[in-house]
C-alpha cells in the first residue's frame, strides 16, 4: 500500500477511494435526515436504531474518520506539490475548461472540514449549543437549532460548498480510478451533477423547512 501512496497518482487514487466512501455516506446521511419530514418519532427511532447497533455505528465512524484523514493529508500534499510545480505564476491566465467546481476544490475542502467539526460539535456531541441540547432527542435538537436563523444559514451555505465539491468530486473519482468509459465530451458530467443536486437539495430542504415553520 505504501508504494502506492508514494506516487502522486497513488495519492489521487487514495483521494478518489476515500471520496467515494464519503459520497456513499452522504447518500445514507441525507436519506436518514429526510425522516425529519415524517416527524419526531420516525427520526428519533432511526437514531435509536443506529445507537443500538453500536458496533456497526462505530465501524462506520472509524472508516469515515480514516477516510477524512487520508483525503485531507493527500490533498494537502498534492497542493504543496502543485505549488512547487509552478513557482512563477502567469501574469495573465484565462481558464478555458476549468469549472467553478474544479477551481474551488481546495478552498471548498477546507471550508467543509471546518463545517464538519462545527456540525459534529453541534448535533452529535452537543458541545456547541445554540439551542437546548438533549441526548437522544435528535428531532428536537435539529428543529431547535434550525429555528435560529444564523444556524440555518451556516448549514445552507455549507451545503452549497459541499454540493459544489461534489459536482467535481463525484465525477472525477471515477476518472482517477480509471473506471470512466471514453466519451466524446469527457468534461460533461450529467450523473455527478444530478447526484450533487439531489444531495444538496435533500440536505438544504431541512434547515429551510424548519426556519420557515414547515416543520415544527
Amino acid at each position, binding site marked *: 500500500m505504501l508504494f502506492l501512496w508514494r506516487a502522486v497518482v497513488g495519492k*489521487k487514487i487514495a483521494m478518489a477511494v476515500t471520496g467515494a466512501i464519503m459520497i456513499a455516506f452522504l447518500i445514507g446521511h441525507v436519506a436518514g435526515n429526510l425522516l425529519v419530514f415524517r416527524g419526531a418519532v420516525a427520526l428519533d427511532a432511526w437514531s435509536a436504531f443506529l445507537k443500538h447497533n453500536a458496533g456497526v455505528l462505530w465501524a462506520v465512524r472509524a472508516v469515515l474518520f480514516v477516510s477524512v484523514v487520508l483525503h485531507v493529508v493527500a490533498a494537502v500534499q498534492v497542493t504543496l506539490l502543485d505549488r512547487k510545480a*509552478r513557482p512563477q505564476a502567469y501574469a495573465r491566465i484565462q481558464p478555458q*475548461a476549468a469549472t467553478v467546481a474544479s477551481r474551488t476544490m481546495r478552498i471548498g475542502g477546507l471550508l467543509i472540514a471546518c463545517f464538519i467539526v462545527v456540525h459534529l460539535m453541534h448535533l452529535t456531541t452537543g458541545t456547541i449549543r445554540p439551542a437546548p441540547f438533549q441526548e437522544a432527542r435528535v428531532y428536537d435538537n435539529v428543529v431547535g437549532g434550525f429555528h435560529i436563523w444564523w444556524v440555518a444559514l451556516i448549514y445552507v451555505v455549507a451545503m452549497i460548498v459541499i454540493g459544489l465539491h461534489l459536482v467535481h468530486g463525484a465525477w*472525477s473519482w471515477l*476518472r482517477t480510478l480509471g473506471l470512466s468509459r471514453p466519451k466524446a465530451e469527457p468534461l460533461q458530467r450529467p450523473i455527478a451533477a444530478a447526484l450533487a443536486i439531489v444531495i444538496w437539495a435533500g440536505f438544504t430542504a431541512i434547515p429551510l423547512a424548519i426556519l420557515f415553520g414547515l416543520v415544527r
Partner: protein
Amino acid sequence: MKLVLRVWRQKERGAPGAFSRYEAPDASPDMSFLELLDVINEHLIVSGEQPIAFDHDCREGICGSCGMMIDGVAHGPMKATATCQLHLRHFRDGDEIQVEPWRAAAFPVIKDLVVDRGALDHIIAAGGFVTAQTGSAPDGNAILVPKRAAEEAMDAAACIGCGACIAACPNGSASLFTAAKISHLGLLPQGQPERARRVVAMVAQMDREGFGNCSWHGECEAACPKSISIDTIVRMNRDWLAACIMPKEKSRSEEGG
C-alpha cells in the same frame, strides 16, 4: 492592422525577466503569430536590440517546437491550433496581447519565450518505446490491429510534445502528455510486452521531474493543439493501478512478448 505585444524578455536561465512592449503598426491579418514576432524581430535587429527568442521549426503545426502563452491561453485563442498556425485575423485591430513562456518548475526558461522541455524527453526515455526487431520492414498484415485500438492509438499519437498541456494546467501536471504516450503505445499489440513496466516507469519519471498532480480541470485538453482527450489519463491511471496491484500480471506480460 495594428497590434501591441507585451512580451516576456529574459536574458538567460535564472535571470530576472520582465515584460517589454512592442508595437506592430502594419501587421497583416494573414500573418501567423510567429511571423508577427519575425517582423518585430527584424525591427529590433535593425535598431540594434536583441531579437525575441522563441522556438519554432516546421511552422505547420506538426513538430511541437512552438508554443507560448498568448493572452493567458496556451497557443492562443484558437482551439486545436499551435502558435505557428494561429493567424492574426483572430485578433482585433489595436489589441494588446500578453505573450509569456510556458511556466513550470520542470520547464526552466532558457531565454525569452524559449523553455527547456527536456523533462518530457526524460519521461519518454523512461518507457516511451517498444522493443522491435531491426532489419527489413515487417510484413504489412503480420500483426493485426483492431480498428478501435488503431483509431484510439492514432488519436493519442497525434501528440507533438509541445508542452501546452503542462503550461495550461493549473497544477503544472504532465499527465496528458504522459498519458498520450502511454495510450499510443499501450493500445497497440506491439506495445504490449512493456505495457505494465512502461506505465510504472513513465509515471514515476513524471513525479521525479517535479510536475504537479492531475485534478481533472480539463485545461490540458482545451489547450492541446491536437485535441487529445483526457480519457487518455483515465487509461493511464487504470494501467498504472493494474500494474501496481497485479505485479504477477506485469511479469507475465514482460516474459510474454
